[in-house]
């Protein structure tokens, strides 16, 4: 505190000195909330993963039983595999679409404001409402296929184990692409105009401008958006829960859903805690890894002179 105050006052006196960082105390409210609502429960979950508890009776020490049980359970392994698959599919679907939409919406031509508002709408709906609506739309007997008299739309969308995961990826994409579009739109608008003018003078066409200027300049936007997508898909729960409940069979029973069903339907709190710890570990590892690989942790500015 005193050091921070001293540094600050010195900074105020001498403008040419290296600017002082903000007081560490400004992080305190966030740290306290994070500690109470994230770190403390996290330790609770780690502790619970070593006991047997059905939510009713008394706790009993289980050692590593829950861990070996979860590791050998085909349902949980399948859940882990599905989560990886879902994450990869979500990024592959959402990233290109939102990048293109974002770049498109960053332009200043006519109707774009209107289109931007329309694209933004799905972000305003609650996940549960989106899921219930899509369940009704995709109903093979009374859904959109029947309403439009289009037989190809009357598929067994959510009932076919081969198809259900892709439908889930689509619906998640539908709800989250607007958000990532917004990020890309903002990122694209930050790119200095001069770069494009220079490129045009050198005879670069639109495609070449996109690949040689827009894309490289959006590097950190891509990192941010992809990290959000990846971590988001890893922990994605509510929409899938309402849309399919993990079914048909286990076709969409991803790890967070498996954790919930194990904990609050089977009342096996120990094993559910194991899954929760795995989820936290994987989530942290993936976001750290993404930052490391892409070098985003250095986060220096891309613009000259600033």
């Amino acid at each position: 505190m005193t050091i921070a105050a001293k540094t600050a006052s010195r900074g105020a006196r001498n403008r040419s000195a290296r600017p002082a960082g903000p007081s560490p105390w400004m992080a305190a409210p966030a740290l306290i909330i994070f500690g109470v609502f994230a770190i403390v429960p996290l330790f609770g979950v780690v502790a619970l993963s070593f006991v047997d508890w059905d939510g009713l009776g008394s706790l009993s020490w289980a050692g590593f039983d829950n861990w070996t049980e979860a590791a050998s359970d085909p349902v949980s392994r399948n859940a882990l595999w599905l989560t990886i698959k879902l994450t990869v599919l979500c990024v592959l679907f959402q990233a290109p679409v939102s990048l293109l939409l974002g770049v498109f919406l960053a332009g200043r031509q006519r109707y774009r404001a209107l289109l931007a508002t329309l694209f933004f709408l799905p972000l305003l709906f609650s996940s549960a409402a989106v899921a219930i609506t899509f369940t009704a739309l995709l109903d093979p007997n009374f859904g959109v296929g029947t309403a439009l008299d289009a037989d190809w739309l009357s598929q067994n969308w959510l009932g076919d184990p081969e198809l259900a995961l892709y439908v889930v990826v689509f619906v998640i994409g539908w709800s989250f692409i607007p958000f990532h579009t917004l990020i890309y739109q903002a990122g694209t608008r930050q790119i200095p105009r001069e770069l494009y003018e220079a490129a045009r003078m050198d005879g670069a066409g639109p495609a070449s401008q996109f690949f040689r200027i827009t894309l490289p300049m959006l590097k950190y936007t891509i990192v941010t958006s992809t990290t959000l997508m990846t971590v988001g898909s890893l922990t994605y729960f509510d929409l899938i829960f309402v849309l399919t409940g993990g079914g048909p069979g286990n076709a969409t029973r991803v790890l967070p859903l498996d954790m919930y069903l194990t904990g609050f339907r089977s009342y096996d709190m120990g094993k559910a805690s194991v899954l929760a710890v795995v989820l936290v570990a994987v989530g942290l590892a993936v976001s750290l890894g993404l930052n490391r690989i892409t070098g985003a942790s250095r986060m220096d500015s891309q613009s000259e002179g600033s």
Partner: protein
Amino acid sequence: MAFGVAAPLLAAGCGNRPGGSGADGATAWALTGGSEEAFRQSFDSWNADHSDQEITAEYFANDAYKEKIRTAIGSGNAPTLIFGWAGATLADYVENGYVEDLTESTADLVERVLPSVAATGTIDGQVYAVPNNQSQPVLMYYNNDVLDAAGTQVPETWDDLLSAVDALKSNGIDAPIALAGQSVWPELMWISYLAERVGGPEAFNRVVAGEAGAWTHPDMVTAAGMITELVDAGGFGDSFASVVADAGADQALVYTGKSGMILQGSWIYPDFITDAPELVSGGGLAYGPFPQVDGGAGDPSNIVGNPANFWSVSADGSEEAREAATAYLSEAVYDDEHIDSLLSIGAVPPVIGLEDRIAEAENADFLSLNYEMVRDAANFQLSWDQAIPSDQAQELLNNLSQLFLGDIDADQFCSAMDATL
């Protein structure tokens, strides 16, 4: 204004409690929808007559309640009157000493209840839960118009059912039997009835008792095989796994003529009246017991479903609260007023000797059949997912949906289930 009225009442309420030890009065938690209105009336009239033993009731949505009640009981915050489904959850409560033995205090009430229903609240000969609303047997509903058009009729036996499926399919009905496969629990009704018809109550009692090999018993394997047979025959069509029961999309198939039959609980009947009044009034809707299976050991009168919901009394509350709760159970549950309010919402309480009163009620035909099925049942099997511990129930739903999808066959289903015992 509201405050002005409420405050003296609250003060009076507190002053009435003898001892003033700060102990809370009796509380009750029940479910919204269904028989909620009957509960409200029952508690209101009890509270009006017993100002010294008032019961405060709260109502919750089904899924939320099931999660909340477990945490509440486990952490010592249970309501005095615990609403439940009996079965394995009740056995859990009893084992951990969370609920009171009601054998003596509710003897008068239990005597008036149909035995097959009362039996559900009994564990090791002691009563721990008493029924509090209507019986909900599962039965077959048929759209007569669809059956007639295909030149077939209400099936009496399993073989009839299979040939009715064929007849409907060749008449252009893609899904002869409506099934909400995405919800999974309607699939449970099929395997429960088939196991009951093939092997009698013993088939599932072995599972409840946790006997090794209960699921791979030949009767269970046969029942599971019949599911595969019906699915392969196209009985449920190709897209049953996309159908959700919550919004009634399964029964909608029946009254819109896209399916000919459905196996569902008695609770869907009011929806038929609301959504397809012409079909019901024109006699197009038929209903009846589940078909028999030739050579099966099960008594054809046996039924599956929810015998009723139940009240248990928490062992946690103050003595005063528990006394109020047991007094309410023995005096007010299924008294004349309660029975009337249940009948008025089309719910049939499992009480002995109601034939005449039901005959005067609206929709008497359906309610009478409902009542007679429960009255005459040699065994009323509680829904399987309630009867066994929740971890096993989850495995059951999981494996069952795969059996219906054809991902696993009867043998794989049975051995996977054996592993859960």
